């Protein structure tokens, strides 16, 4: 248990060890690699949202001058079933068919063929020479329509999983899920007040500024090296190996710096194509998605249709709660309805509840994770309903949540009892926060909401090498999206007791570092940090042994304090303490280089709670919503580098506000995305936002040496409902659907 001792390095705000390269333009991102003899790859994408492929002929393209490779679905090994491994989500066959269509195209933009040529323009021209014959089918685009019994089928062999009786008829509902406890009807009987709400959210995108990009080169022995911008090069390597039926040893994945991912870069899109094109041409192949391709054909977040019903006593105690949560999966099953169903009531101590989740196929891109996948949509519904409940009971929204808040020992809605968690502390802190005391400005409204995510553990490896002068090199396998190299160096400095400036951190490729799961699931600082700490402890053990050898004493007579080996009290006091530098000076004679290592499957990831509130103003003549102020309170367990914890809270808040106010996929009747660009897919710009005030709460996670909880995903969960509740407070009208776009808000105001 991390006693609340004051730390020497942890909690400080040093400059990140990789910072200089990022502010000078030297840092290499996915598209920054140019190799001699390199070809440029381009993908031919389906012009139909739903069609059978009758024939694909790339021969004319291959015959064009400057074109050295051309592939289609036929060039891929037969896709076999089984879990894809890593976090790609879903079945190998599905991921393989999403990387390149085989018998059917299932969304507009679905990859059908690809070429590699000596220039991008030649490759573009070659795409036009590829002949494809389609048998166009009716697309299924609307979530509710897709769930209807007679809906056209996205996949004729999709039978709903987890039904009490095996399904006889194929359906677009790929899976259902139920969680229940107690007697809901009884609970509603006892309720003094009942509120209900129905909420719809369209498909949105993570919006990372760097398009997917990779370069692959395959040598004559069939060994491939792939540079790619990814959240997890190990996971992408195993996915590529499955899809191409290659041995993992023949695939070396090098993670470039990554220009944002938020869950969307945990899945393969271009990598297998680049490897095949390079194998066919025996030349390096670089593939970079255009922004339009990123919107049409990467992994957006699921659109949803949710219904919530809550019953409560006059004192606010919730006696019954039901949730009906339908999630778009896109072209292949795998919508995050499971996590969504497990999160919807998780922050609350409920006796009687029933949750139904639906994973529904539609002819849209296959969804991928987006920061606490499934939770923001569910939280928007629940926290909006809670806001209405607070109004019915004329209770302060924070007080209503305090009455029902989960705490240590609460039986979570998703099953187990909670260990130590910080929701109540966050609610109490928000209640007394100076911004909460400030009056709501004229014409504005205030919204409050709670966010929750489980946070993941999973596998990590780390090595800590001592250089000859006692400085420290960390090697670990997690791409650094949000400053994690700095956190690793801080945890190593704290454990070893040596200055942060003496520590360098390398994100090793798949040949240089041990296996590590993705940078995602808010796990990196928690799990990889734990491996770095254990590797440092391994180094300390070896240093103590070296000191014992140097002093001629037993190892247990040596202690480690403030970065030095010191004799334990009672042992010969004049022995001079030995620093890392001293020990390394003598290392050759006492046993050679010193290298600590650790690999683990991190246990005990601590749940992350947040409470957000914000004041938003509505122009009642145009329906436009402006954010005046925003405050995020979140439990980080222990903030290793507070600036980057604040950064996660601020970035998540603004992504959430963008999701709430302006972001949506607009499809036409044929399933073609109408706004595949940053002009009309409107993410917040600098002038849209106020400063985002943050307060970090620290309820230590007992399972981490320094009390760390993941912080990366919880920030996205609350803002959607904060915006919806603030607009309700400002206008007196509840707009249940997102985004709260000016036309929708104005129509609601005029309808009221």
């Amino acid at each position, binding site marked *: 248990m991390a006693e609340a001792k004051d730390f020497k390095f942890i909690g400080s705000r040093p400059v990140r060890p990789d910072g200089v390269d990022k502010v000078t333009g030297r840092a290499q991102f996915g598209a920054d690699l140019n190799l001699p003899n390199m070809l440029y790859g381009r993908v031919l994408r389906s012009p139909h949202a739903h069609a059978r492929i009758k024939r694909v002929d790339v021969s004319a393209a291959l015959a064009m001058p400057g074109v050295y490779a051309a592939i289609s679905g036929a060039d891929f090994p037969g896709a076999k079933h089984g879990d894809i491994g890593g976090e790609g989500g879903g079945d190998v066959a599905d991921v393989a068919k999403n990387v390149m269509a085989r018998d059917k195209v299932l969304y507009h933009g679905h990859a059908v063929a690809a070429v590699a040529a000596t220039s991008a323009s030649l490759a573009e021209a070659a795409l036009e020479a590829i002949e494809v014959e389609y048998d166009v089918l009716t697309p299924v685009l609307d979530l509710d329509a897709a769930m209807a019994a007679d809906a056209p089928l996205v996949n004729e062999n999709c039978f709903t999983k987890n039904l009490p009786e095996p399904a006889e008829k194929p359906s677009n509902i790929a899976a259902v899920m139920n969680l229940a406890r107690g007697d809901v009807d009884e609970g509603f009987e006892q309720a003094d007040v009942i509120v209900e709400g129905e909420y719809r959210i369209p498909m949105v995108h993570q919006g990372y500024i760097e398009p997917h990009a990779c370069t692959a080169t395959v040598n004559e022995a069939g060994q491939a090296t792939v540079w790619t911008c990814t959240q997890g090069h190990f996971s992408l390597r195993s996915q590529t190996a499955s899809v191409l039926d290659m041995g993992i040893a023949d695939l070396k994945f090098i993670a470039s710096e990554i220009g944002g991912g938020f869950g969307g870069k945990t899945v393969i899109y271009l990598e297998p194509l680049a490897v095949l094109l390079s194998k066919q041409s025996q030349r390096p192949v670089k593939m970079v998605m255009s922004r339009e391709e990123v919107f049409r054909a990467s992994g957006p977040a699921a659109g949803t249709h949710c219904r919530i019903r809550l019953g409560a006593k006059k004192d606010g105690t919730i006696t019954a709660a039901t949730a009906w949560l339908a999630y778009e999966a896109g072209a292949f099953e795998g919508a995050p309805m499971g996590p969504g169903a497990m999160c919807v009531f998780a922050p609350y101590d409920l006796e009687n509840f029933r949750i139904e989740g639906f994973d529904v196929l539609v002819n849209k891109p296959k969804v991928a994770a987006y920061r606490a996948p499934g939770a923001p949509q569910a939280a928007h519904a629940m926290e909006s309903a809670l806001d209405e409940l607070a109004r019915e009971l004329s209770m302060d929204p924070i007080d209503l949540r305090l009455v029902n808040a989960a705490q240590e020992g609460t039986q979570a809605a998703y099953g187990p009892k909670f260990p130590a968690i910080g929701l109540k502390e966050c609610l109490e802190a928000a209640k007394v926060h100076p911004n909460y005391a400030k009056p709501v400005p004229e014409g504005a409204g205030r919204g409050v909401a709670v966010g929750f995510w489980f946070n993941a553990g999973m596998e990590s490896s780390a090595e800590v090498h001592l250089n000859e002068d006692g400085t420290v090199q960390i090697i670990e396998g997690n791409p650094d999206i949000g400053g994690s190299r700095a956190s690793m160096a801080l945890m190593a400095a704290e454990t070893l007791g040596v200055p942060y400036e003496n520590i360098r951190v390398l994100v090793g490729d798949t040949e240089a570092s041990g296996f590590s799961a993705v940078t995602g699931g808010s796990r990196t600082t928690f799990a990889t940090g734990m491996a770095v700490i254990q590797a440092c402890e391994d180094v300390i053990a070896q240093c103590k042994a070296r000191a014992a050898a140097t002093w001629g004493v037993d190892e247990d007579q040596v202690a480690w304090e403030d970065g030095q080996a010191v004799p334990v009290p009672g042992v010969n006091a004049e022995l001079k303490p030995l620093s890392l530098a001293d020990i390394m000076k003598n290392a050759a004679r006492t046993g050679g280089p010193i290298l600590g290592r650790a690999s683990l499957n991190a246990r005990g990831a601590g749940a992350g709670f947040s409470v957000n509130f914000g004041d938003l103003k509505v122009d009642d003549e145009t329906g436009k919503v402006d954010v005046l102020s925003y405050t995020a309170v979140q439990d980080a367990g222990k903030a290793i580098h507070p600036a980057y914890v604040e*950064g996660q809270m601020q970035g998540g808040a603004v992504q959430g506000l963008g999701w709430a106010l302006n972001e949506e996929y607009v499809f036409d009747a044929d399933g073609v995305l109408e706004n595949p660009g940053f002009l009309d897919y409107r993410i917040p710009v600098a002038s849209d936002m106020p400063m985002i005030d943050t307060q970090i709460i620290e309820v230590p996670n007992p399972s981490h040496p320094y009390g760390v909880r993941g912080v990366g995903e919880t920030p996205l969960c609350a803002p959607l409902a904060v915006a919806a509740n603030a607009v309700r407070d400002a206008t007196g009208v509840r707009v249940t659907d997102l985004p709260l776009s000016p036309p929708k808000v104005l129509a609601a105001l005029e309808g009221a």
Partner: protein
Amino acid sequence: MSKLHVTTSINGDPVEFLTAPEQTLVDVLREQLDLTGTKEGCSTGDCGACSVLVDGRLVCACLVLAAEAEGAEITTIEGIATADGLHPIQEKFLEHAALQCGICTPGYIVATKALLEKHPEPDEETIRYWLAGNLCRCTGYDKIVRAVQDAATTLAHEA
């Protein structure tokens, strides 16, 4: 398709290159001159990751034809730091953790340099509207604005 010969200056060094008429400046910088510090997020002038200075004027390199660089003075992120170290703007972005993934940072630093040359002590609104063309998805903009304010104060003292 005959290429055009362009003579220009990049970060103070004379540079010559051949370009196709429709090729953009960002394309030539990144794919021919290996100046990959200028990033490409959208190629339609909506994200600002490819911000450069052309004759001191802040522009998107994806919306400038490489041919238009003829006789111009181009400044890219690679030209901001000098032999005696990082520019104060670069230092403040690091100090304030005003970047997380860093893909937007080169564009932000060039845009901030242009801002502070025109508005030495900008208020928050001026900073946010000037930088509205630089999209960032990780930070939520808060620490970027604070880093720019701090850089302005530092530069004002040095001036």
